[in-house]
């Protein structure tokens, strides 16, 4: 009985060694594969980083202005630009664009026309 038990134990140990060796090999191969994949990921991220930087360069304000000038586009005067929250609501003719305190603020200081010269030393 004891011998049989010993035999099974030893056999089980032998099988376990084989199984562990298999797992170990599989792990080693998987690690190599993982390292290669990680390397590829790092390389791809590097390429993405370069492409993002290249995009920032070609889509930068300087390039856009250059292209706009090539197409004969000119700067829009500031008075033609506004934002949605500045647009009057339905039923409001001018407000808030026309008669806001901001717009009329220039009249706060009484005006007295004078020549546009700067006399700083």
């Amino acid at each position, binding site marked *: 009985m*004891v011998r049989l038990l010993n035999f099974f*134990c030893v056999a089980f*140990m032998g099988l*376990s060694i084989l199984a*562990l060796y298999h*797992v170990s090999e599989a*792990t080693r191969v*998987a*690690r190599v594969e*993982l*390292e290669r994949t*990680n*390397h590829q*990921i*790092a390389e791809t*991220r*590097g390429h993405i*980083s370069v492409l*993002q*930087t*290249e995009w*920032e*360069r070609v889509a*930068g*304000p*300087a390039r856009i*202005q250059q292209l706009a000038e090539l197409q004969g586009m000119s*700067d829009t*005067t*500031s*008075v*033609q*630009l*506004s*934002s949605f929250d*500045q647009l009057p609501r339905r039923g409001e*003719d*001018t407000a*808030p*664009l*026309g008669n*806001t*305190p*901001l*717009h009329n*603020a*220039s009249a*706060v*200081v009484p*005006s*007295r*026309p*004078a*020549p*546009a*010269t*700067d*006399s*700083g*030393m």
Partner: protein
Amino acid sequence: MGLIPRRIIIGAGLCVVAFALVGIRLVDVTLMQGGVAASVSGRVIAARADLTDRNGELLARDLPVKDLYARPRVLWDKAQAARDLARVTGADMRRLDNGFNTARHPYVLVARQLTPDQQDSVMHLGLPGLEFEPSAKRYYPDGRTAAQLLGVTDADNNGVSGLELGLNEKLHSQAGSQVATSIDKRVQYILAHETESARQMFTARAAGGVVMDVNSGEIIAMISVPDFDPNQRRLGAGDSTRNVMAQDVYELGSVFKIFSFALGFEDKTMHLDEVFPIGQGFRIGKYTIHEAEHMPATLQARDILAQSSNIGTSQIALRSGGVRQRAFLQKIGLLGPIRSELPEMARPLYPRANWGAIETATVGFGQGISVSPLSFVAAAASMVNGGRRITPTFLKQAPGADNRKEQVIRPDTSEQMRDLLRYVVTNGTGRKADIPGYDVGGKTGSAQVPGPNGRYIPHALRTSFISIFPVHKPRYILFVLLDQPHGTKETGGFALAGYTAAPLAGKVISRIAPLLGVPNTAPPVKLARGNS
């Protein structure tokens, strides 16, 4: 019988322990170490964090490059290898030749920061004993646009100037992530473009500009020309690494008059309707103060600022006196260097020993005191933001952040100053900065330029314009500076600030105000007409 089961139990126990150890090791190898390896090798090699603008647009990034090393022992023909490597990498051939023949170490550095094209060229040489080491190279997509502001790094990826130096530790500690600056790339470009255009038009020696949020202190844009290409290691002809807005101090001239008026309001020594005698000259001891342009015999206080009268401003400054003036300038931070994330700063120059009547008068109209433009902008912002001190910052703040500190002038004084600056633009020397739809307030400054011998250079001017918009609820302050501009046919030969700096400020504001979401107050009827 009793002993046998005990041995078996002990043997079985040992087996369990052995299997448990193997199991733990398996878990350690497969899960723990594997995870660490994955996280390490998954990163892009970056020594420093990216620098971005306030909208997340890239300003500076480490790009993956390779350093090339050679093992001289395995090179067949060292002289030929040195020639070939020098040709494709740009390295010094003599250094390589010398290094290959007298190398004490197994490896010799051939070249650093090789681009992918250069790496391909090296590979095509087919030389043995070459090894590439991953490295990083700092790249600035916008090139010259923010060169002095961002600064550069050295070959070891340490900051040597600008924000690269000022934020060096932060950029190193956050490598692989991003650090958001307060800069708006669009505004930076517009300011750079318009300032360089003005510099060329007026053939000025140098020029610069700053845009700052008056409540948060965020610097939205800062430029200095001539500039340089931060992606090249060498400076080209006419290039300069100097940031004139932070590193240099200037006598700014008449823009300084706003402080004399603010002090006058604070001390209640004058009111806007008061009439001051101007005349042909104003004697203080053995000195006589003159106007640069012809002035009427008398001027109201508001027109002293609008017409930029030196004599009128001197009288206003003298009413407060030198002691009070000095304390006031100290209080608003103009008598010390300004501290920010930017390492470049300059100490102001002012009369330290004797601050008498003549010094009070000249400082009152911006001569005899030299400050950096950045210090001036911060002090001017505190005059219009409700009267509270503000320190510039180059790091992005939370939306709507209010970083204003202690009160330096009363809120009602600040309100009077805003009205007065608007008056200068509508009725005075700053008319060319009056942009339809945006209520701009501002002040011109045309200062004399001291030469190397300390005397003022005849006919040389340094012109500037400080502007705020929208004037009655200020959000942004813009300061532009032109060093020794020349008049043109369009300006009638005049090079004063009203003809050079004010139009420049107007152009910049008309382009950046819509981008910054400043309310457009132009009436709709005008809008419709413009569109037709």
